[in-house]
C-alpha cells in the first residue's frame, strides 16, 4: 500500500497509459471485455488523481523524482548538474487533477453508451485514455520540456478524437484546423523553452524561477508561451479553431476537451505566477490578460447568439466563459505587487477565476453531454429542426436546464458562486469590467433560454414521437456532473476553503513551490 502511495505521481501517468495500450489487445482477443476494461482504466486513473490531489491538499506539495529514491535531491545529482526529471504537484495542480478526474469518469460512462453501436472502439478508448494521461501530465510536471511533451500528447489525442466520426468529412475539417493550430502552438512553446534554456541551462521550472530576471530573451519567451497557450485554451484572438473542433467532435469527447483546453490555461497561470513569479511588469501583462479575457467574453457570446448548430453555439459559449477565468486571474496579476489591493480584492479575483475553471468544466461538460444525448436520439444538430423534446427526454431536459442556469450565473448553481466572486472583485478594481461581465452573463442567459425553448419546449413533434429517454449510462454520467453543479452552488464556501484558496495561494506565493523543489537551499 505504501508503495502505491509513495509512487502516486508516477502512477498518474502509468495507469492511463497502461489502460490505453491494453485496450486494443482486449479489443482483438476479448471484445466483450473491452468497454468494461476502458471504464475500469478510467476509474483507476481518476482514483489515482483524486488520491494524489487529496494528499497534496492535506500535506502540501509533492515532489517526485523519477528513477531515484525518496531521499535523492530533487534537482541536482552528485556532480551538480540539473538533470533530474521531476513531477511537482502543488495545490493548483491538485485542483486541476480533481476537475480532470471527475469529468473523465462522467464522460467515460457517457461514451460507454454513445459508442455502443459504433465501430473502432479500441482506438477510440485508447485515444481517450491518452488524452486523460496528457491532461494529468500537463498539470503535474515540474519540468518545462515534459510540459511540452504532455501538451503534444494532449493535442494529438484530442485532434484524432475530434475526427473520429467523419460525418462526410466535416469532422476531419474541424480536426485539421485544430491540429495545425496546436502544432504551431506547440512549436512556439518549444521555442520559448529553448530561449529559457539558453539563459539558465535548465528545464526545471523551480530552478528557472529562482534565477529568472527580465531581459529581452525571457520576455520574448513569455510572449511565445502566452500566445501558444492562449491558442490551446481557445481564447480570443486564437479562438477560430475551437468552435470548429468542439462542434464536430463526439459530444462526450468535447466535454473532456474543455478540460484539455483548461490545461492550457493551467500552463498560462503556472508560467506567469510560478516560473516568472512576477519579475516582469505585472500591471502591463495583467492588463493584456484582462483584455484577452474581456474580448473572449464579448466576442464569444456575440458569435454564439446567431448560431444554428447547437454544439457550435455551446462551443462559442466556451470561448466566452474562458474570458471570465482570464479576467479574474488578470485582475489578480495586475495587483500582485500591491499588498493592500491584493488582500482587498486581488485574492478574491484569483479565487473567482480559478473556481470558474472548475465550475465551467462541470456545467459545460453537463451541457455538452445533455445536447449530445439529444443528438444521439434524434440525429439532428440544427436548433431550428428540434422541438418538443421535453415530452420524450424529461431527465435530459432537467440536466440541460440546470447546466444552462449555471452557465448564465443564476443562483443557486455553481456558476453564480464563481461569477459573484469575479463581479465583486473586478468591481473594486475597475467597475467597467464588472459591468461588461454582467452584460455578457445576461446575453448568455438570453442565448440559453432560446436554446432551451427550441429544444425542449413546445408541442410534441410528430417526427420525434419515437424518441426515447437517453440510455442509462449517459444519464449516470450527467448525474455525476449535476451533483457538482448543484452542491458547489449551494455550499461554495466549503469547496473554496478546501480547494480553491490553497490553489490561489499556491499561485500567489510562488515561494512555497520553489522551496518544495529546491528544499530552501540554493
Amino acid at each position, binding site marked *: 500500500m505504501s508503495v502505491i502511495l509513495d509512487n502516486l505521481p508516477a502512477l498518474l501517468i502509468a495507469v492511463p497509459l497502461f489502460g490505453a495500450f491494453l485496450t486494443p489487445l482486449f479489443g482483438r482477443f476479448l471484445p466483450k471485455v473491452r468497454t468494461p476494461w476502458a471504464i475500469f482504466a478510467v476509474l483507476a486513473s481518476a482514483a489515482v488523481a483524486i488520491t494524489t490531489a487529496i494528499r497534496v491538499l492535506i500535506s502540501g506539495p509533492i515532489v517526485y523524482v523519477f528513477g531515484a529514491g525518496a531521499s535523492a535531491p530533487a534537482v541536482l545529482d552528485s556532480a551538480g548538474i540539473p538533470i533530474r526529471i521531476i513531477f511537482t504537484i502543488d495545490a493548483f495542480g491538485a485542483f486541476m487533477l480533481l476537475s480532470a478526474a471527475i469529468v473523465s469518469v462522467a464522460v467515460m460512462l457517457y461514451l460507454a453508451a454513445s459508442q455502443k453501436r459504433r465501430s473502432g472502439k479500441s482506438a477510440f478508448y485508447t485515444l481517450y485514455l491518452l488524452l486523460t494521461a496528457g491532461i494529468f501530465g500537463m498539470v503535474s510536471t515540474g519540468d518545462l520540456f515534459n510540459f511540452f511533451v504532455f501538451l503534444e500528447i494532449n493535442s494529438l489525442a484530442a485532434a484524432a478524437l475530434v475526427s473520429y466520426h467523419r460525418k462526410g468529412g466535416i469532422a476531419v475539417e474541424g480536426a*485539421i484546423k485544430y491540429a*495545425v493550430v496546436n502544432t504551431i502552438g506547440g512549436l512556439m512553446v518549444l521555442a520559448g523553452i529553448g530561449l529559457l*534554456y539558453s539563459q539558465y541551462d535548465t528545464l526545471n521550472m523551480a530552478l528557472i524561477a529562482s534565477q529568472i530576471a527580465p531581459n529581452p530573451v525571457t520576455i520574448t519567451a513569455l510572449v511565445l508561451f502566452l500566445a501558444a497557450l492562449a491558442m490551446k485554451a481557445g481564447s480570443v484572438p486564437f479562438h477560430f479553431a475551437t468552435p470548429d473542433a468542439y462542434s464536430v467532435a463526439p459530444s462526450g469527447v468535447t466535454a473532456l476537451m474543455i478540460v484539455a483546453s483548461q490545461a492550457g490555461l493551467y500552463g498560462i497561470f503556472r508560467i506567469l505566477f510560478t516560473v516568472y513569479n512576477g519579475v516582469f511588469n505585472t500591471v502591463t501583462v495583467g492588463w493584456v490578460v484582462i483584455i484577452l479575457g474581456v474580448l473572449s467574453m464579448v466576442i464569444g457570446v456575440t458569435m454564439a447568439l446567431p448560431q444554428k448548430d447547437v454544439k457550435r453555439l455551446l462551443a462559442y459559449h466556451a470561448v466566452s466563459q474562458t474570458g471570465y477565468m482570464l479576467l479574474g486571474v488578470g485582475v489578480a496579476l495586475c495587483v500582485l505587487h500591491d499588498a493592500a489591493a491584493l488582500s482587498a480584492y486581488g485574492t478574491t479575483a484569483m479565487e473567482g477565476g480559478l473556481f470558474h475553471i472548475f465550475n465551467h468544466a462541470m456545467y459545460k461538460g453537463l451541457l455538452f453531454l445533455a445536447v449530445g444525448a439529444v443528438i444521439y436520439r434524434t440525429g439532428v444538430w440544427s436548433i431550428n429542426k428540434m422541438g418538443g423534446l421535453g415530452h420524450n427526454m424529461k431527465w435530459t431536459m432537467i440536466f440541460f436546464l440546470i447546466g444552462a442556469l449555471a452557465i448564465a450565473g443564476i443562483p443557486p448553481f455553481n456558476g453564480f458562486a464563481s461569477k459573484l466572486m469575479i463581479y465583486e472583485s473586478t468591481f473594486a478594481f475597475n467597475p467597467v469590467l464588472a459591468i461588461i461581465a454582467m452584460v455578457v452573463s445576461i446575453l448568455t442567459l438570453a442565448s440559453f433560454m432560446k436554446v432551451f425553448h427550441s429544444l425542449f419546449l413546445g408541442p410534441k413533434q410528430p417526427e420525434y414521437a419515437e424518441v426515447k429517454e437517453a440510455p442509462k449510462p449517459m444519464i449516470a454520467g450527467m448525474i455525476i456532473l449535476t451533483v457538482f453543479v448543484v452542491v458547489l452552488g449551494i455550499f461554495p464556501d466549503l469547496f473554496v476553503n478546501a480547494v480553491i484558496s490553497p490553489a490561489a495561494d499556491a499561485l500567489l506565493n510562488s515561494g512555497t513551490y520553489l522551496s518544495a523543489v529546491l528544499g530552501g537551499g540554493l
Partner: protein
Amino acid sequence: MMAIPLIAVAILIGIAFAILLIKRNMIKMVMALGILEGAVNLFLVSLGYREGGVAPIFVSAPDTAMVLPTVQALTLTNIVIGVATTAMILAFIMVIWKKYGTVNADKMRRLKK
C-alpha cells in the same frame, strides 16, 4: 560563428510563416509546418553547440569541451513528435481529398454552413 545558425533559424521561421499565410494548398501548409519544426530543432541544437566540442560521453571523455546533451535529447523527442503530427495531418488531408475532392483550404468550408 554562433550567429550563423540563428540567422538560418530566423530565415526558416520567416519562410514557414509566409507559406502558412500565403499558400492555400494544405500539402504545402504541412510542408511549412515541417520547415517550422526544422527551424526549432536547429535552434535547440545550436544552443548546445560548443566550438570544438566532442560528443558528451563521460566514460571516454577527453579533457576538452563537450556539446550539451540535453538539447539534443529535446531535439530527438521533437523529431518523433513531428513525425506523429505530420502523419496525422496528412491522413486528415487524405480524407478531405476523398470527401471534398480538393486540398485547397479556402474551398474546405462545409463546416461553416
